[in-house]
Structures are given as structure tokens and as C-alpha cells.
């Protein structure tokens, strides 16, 4: 189930032109990070994937569905969306009910719902917290509930809006693992992030946006090495990419393994 966005324009009712002609194809199973300064149009773009926003002009297709012809409820079958702030999406009195809400509404059988809830809670390490009210958990763990409630819907496409905001190191590692498991299951994962190091370590494809347009789109190493273009959307390359550049390593590196390999080769030359 591929995503096809063609010449997408969007203006908010106040006249602000948030998207100015976006064309993109994302194939099933791809892991894509979207980066760029606040106001670049990242959230506006992904809200078109599940019909929360409709194009002012242009088209968005999720598989054979044109988002203009489908309701948000229908699109929820194909696209799961985790909001930036978990408090905007949690409402149930306990974690188990919260996570079961999505799959139940998609019409899965009772047994199937149970299985998917169990699986999603295990993935975010919340299996023993099903009876707890989400609001008795810390913000870190509320975020995990929000993640689980979307994972449990078992959609082909999962969108995360700023998943690492305010999370500590352990929690970021947990989110990275969720993305890895979804990749192994062949899901498409689209993540908006300001955390460029997290982006470098977990995504193969990176899209950089600026002022409603796509500035760069390609393999992570290619995109993240373009410091001058990235600066136009106020994104600094990842730490190890910058370290590699300052040391004049011959290749663009984006994580520890790549850095150590390139550095070691350079010490031998």
C-alpha cells in the first residue's frame, strides 16, 4: 500500500499557505523521517495522510484510496497517527481500555483485539499497567500509552509526530525499538522529528521541509551531509556527521558504527 502525494497545496482558513506543491511517493515498508524548522509544514503534511486535513488542491492517495473520497474513520484503517502531545488523544479510564479502543472500532473480533492490545503493550513495556488510569502515569509513560493505542490498530502505515519530545534516554531507546519492530513487520513508518541524531540512527530515508516545500529527499547519508541546504531549514546535521566533516573523513557518516569504521580507515591511510 503506497502513499502517493501529487502537487499538494494547502492553505489554512486564515490564508496562511502551509503547503506549496508537495509531490512524494512513499512505498509500503519504508521508514521515513521528516525534519525541518517549526512552521515548515511537517504536521500539516502528515495530517493529510489520514484525512484530518483535505488538500486545497492536489491529491493524496493511500493505496487505491483518494483521501478526498474517504472519511477520517475509514482512513484510520490504513493510517495510524500518534499525536505529539499524548494528552490530546487519551481519554479512557484505564490503559487496557484506551489501547483496545482503536482496534475495537475498526471491527476486529474480541479475540483479535485482545491479541493486538497485548502485543502493543508488550512492545512499549506497559504489560503490567493495564488497570492504571493513563493520567496516573508520568508524561513519559503516557506517551507510551499513546503509541500502543495506535500500534494496536495494526495499520499498514504509522505516523509519529515528534515521538521523542521530552523523553529520557531509556524511553527514546524504547521508541527506537518500536520503529525497528514495525520495520520488521513490513509497516510504513513516517516520523516527524527535531531530534536529528535520533533520525540519523533510525531512518533510511529523510525528507527535509522548509516553508511548505520539500527541500531535500533521499537516503539519510545523502540528505544529512548537506549542511548548507539543511541550514536553510535550521537543521544541524547529526553530531557524528559534523564530527566526521570536521575531521575531513572521506564519507558522510551518521552513526557510531559508520564513524568508527571511517575513522579507523583514515588512521591507517
Amino acid at each position, binding site marked *: 500500500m503506497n502513499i502517493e502525494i501529487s502537487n499538494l497545496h494547502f492553505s489554512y482558513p486564515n490564508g496562511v499557505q502551509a503547503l506549496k506543491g508537495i509531490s512524494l511517493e512513499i512505498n509500503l515498508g519504508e521508514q521515513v523521517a521528516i525534519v525541518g*524548522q*517549526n512552521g515548515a509544514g511537517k504536521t500539516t503534511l502528515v495530517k493529510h495522510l489520514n484525512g484530518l486535513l483535505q488538500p486545497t488542491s492536489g491529491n493524496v492517495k493511500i493505496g487505491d484510496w483518494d483521501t478526498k473520497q474517504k472519511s477520517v474513520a475509514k482512513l484510520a484503517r490504513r493510517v495510524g497517527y500518534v499525536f*505529539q*502531545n499524548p*494528552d490530546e488523544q487519551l481519554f479512557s479510564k484505564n490503559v487496557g481500555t484506551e489501547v483496545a479502543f482503536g482496534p475495537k472500532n475498526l471491527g476486529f473480533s474480541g479475540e483479535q483485539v485482545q491479541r493486538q492490545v497485548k502485543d502493543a503493550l508488550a512492545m512499549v513495556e506497559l504489560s503490567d499497567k493495564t488497570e492504571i488510569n493513563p493520567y496516573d502515569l*508520568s*508524561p*513519559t509513560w503516557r506517551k507510551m500509552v499513546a503509541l500502543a493505542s495506535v500500534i494496536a490498530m495494526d495499520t499498514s502505515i504509522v505516523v509519529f509526530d*515528534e515521538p521523542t*519530545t*521530552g*523523553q*529520557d*534516554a*531509556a*524511553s527514546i531507546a524504547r521508541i527506537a525499538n518500536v520503529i525497528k519492530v514495525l520495520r520488521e513487520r513490513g509497516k510504513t513508518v513516517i516520523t516527524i522529528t*527535531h531530534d*536529528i*541524531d535520533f533520525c540519523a540512527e533510525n531512518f533510511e530515508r529523510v525528507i527535509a521541509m522548509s516553508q511548505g516545500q520539500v527541500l531535500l529527499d533521499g537516503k539519510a547519508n545523502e540528505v544529512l551531509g548537506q549542511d548548507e541546504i539543511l541550514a536553510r531549514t*535550521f*537543521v*544541524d546535521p*547529526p*553530531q*557524528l556527521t*559534523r*564530527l566526521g566533516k*570536521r*575531521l*575531513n573523513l572521506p564519507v558522510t557518516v551518521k552513526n*557510531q558504527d559508520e*564513524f*568508527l569504521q571511517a*575513522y*579507523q580507515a*583514515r*588512521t591507517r591511510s
Partner: protein
Amino acid sequence: MAIVNLTNVTYKYPLTNEPVLKDINLQVNEGEFVAVIGPNGAGKSTLCYTIAGFVPHFFKGEITGTVKVAGNESSKSNLHEWVLNVGLAFQNPFNQISGAKYTVFEEIAFGLENIGVPREEMIQRVNDGMKLTGIRDLADRSPYSLSGGQQQRVALTSILVMQPKVLVLDEPTSQMDPIGTREVFGVIRTMAERGMTVIMAEHKVEWIANFADRVVALHEGQILLDGKPGEVLTSELLTGKGFGISRYTSVARRAKELGLWRRDTLPVTLDEAVEGFASALTPSPSPKGRGEL
């Protein structure tokens, strides 16, 4: 001279069995910028609340030991006196915005109205504050129409204009993009240089390394380490406990195991990493620092 003085402070929230802070001893000097690091649940927010007087005056619970700020003792003061010396910006700005004001300008003036600052001075302070934090263009917007990062700037500004002696910040940049983070750290550094004492709970270690004077590492309610950023942030004691570690530190630690990092100390900033790694290369790339992170 120490302006913040915590002696043997242990604190337990109501209805809980375990103390969140255990025997905390912390002295912070006037004009010092201290960063508090630790995994979520370590007690960072509670420590912020304690210094800001919300513990125990607002949250209740059981506290032992003494908390002193600018010579006053918390247990012998009222919260409304305490806020004249200490300002707190909450982790979630949504919890801080009053809900009683229609515009950002009025929201920032709210605290000043409550302490009876004269009108002309109030307008001046609000305008200066908004200029400092780069939110003048938001003055007429509703605080609730803003993004998380913008709300955080408003929350910070509304505390700065109160001109507290001690500024307590609980992850003030958690919802900001990198440019916002850079600007806010810059503003806070400026305030410290002007003599304001800053205590900041924060996860972003590379920023702390470049801006803070001192780092306190909290773990399970206790102070694990307290010292210079370069020493605390590269300490072996932090590994395996859920602390954020700079990627420069992590990669140098691995390089050391491979015999590729030959210095005794590990780097925490880009410049330190460049210097250390460049020294083993021929021809050596220019290790000149550019003050980047």
C-alpha cells in the same frame, strides 16, 4: 555565597510510600547556572518544585531537612512570599498558563499584576521580556493558539519578567526545535551572567556541556554526582542507569576500547571530540573550535 541551600532534604508525596528525594544536600551560589540531569522518575521535577516552594506548600506531603533561599526558610514562609525570590517554569507550559488572559502580552503581565508592579513599569518589563525571548510577534495571540515550543517561551518570559533571584526551569526546551533550544539556552546564559541564579532540569547533555557551570546528576532521588559538566557528563558512574550520554562521549568510549582514543578524558562537546580525534591523524585537520555543539 550560597543563595540556595538544601540540607538533608527528604520528601514524600502524599499517598506514596517511598520518598522521591532522599537526603539531598545542595548549595548553589549566586549567579551560578546549575543543570540537573537524570532519567525520568529520578526526582528532577520534585527537586525543582522543592526549591520553588511548591513542595511542600502546594503538593503537601512530608518533608524533612531545611530548604533555604536567599536566607529565608521554606517551612517558615508562605508561597506568595517565596515567589518573589524564586520563579519556576513548569515542564508542561500548558499547566502554567493562567487561563484568565486573552493575549500573550496580558499573560506575561499576570504575575506582575499580582505583585503590584506599577503599570508603566509592567508594560516596560513585559516588552523587554518578549524582546529577550523573541516572542514580540506573539503579543496579541491567545496563549492557547500557540505551539508547544511557543508556549514554553511564553511560560519562560512570564517568569523572567518577575525578575526572581533564582530561576528554576523544568525542561524548558523540551518542545522546541533546535533553533529555539539554542536561543533559550543563550537567554538563560545571559541571565546567569547578569547575576540570576539558574537551576535547570534538562536532558540535552550537549547543550548543558556548553552552557552550564555545574551539573548535578540525580538518580533514584539521590545526588549521584555534582561537579563540572565535563567531569560529570563523562563519568562511568552514569552508564547503565538511564542517563543521557553525549554521542561524542559514547563514540570516544568505544574508540578507546579499540585503541583509537588516546586521551585520559572523554569529550562531551564537538570541539573536544574534534581535538581528540584529530590529534591521531596525519595530516591533522584544523582542530580550531567554532563553538558548535
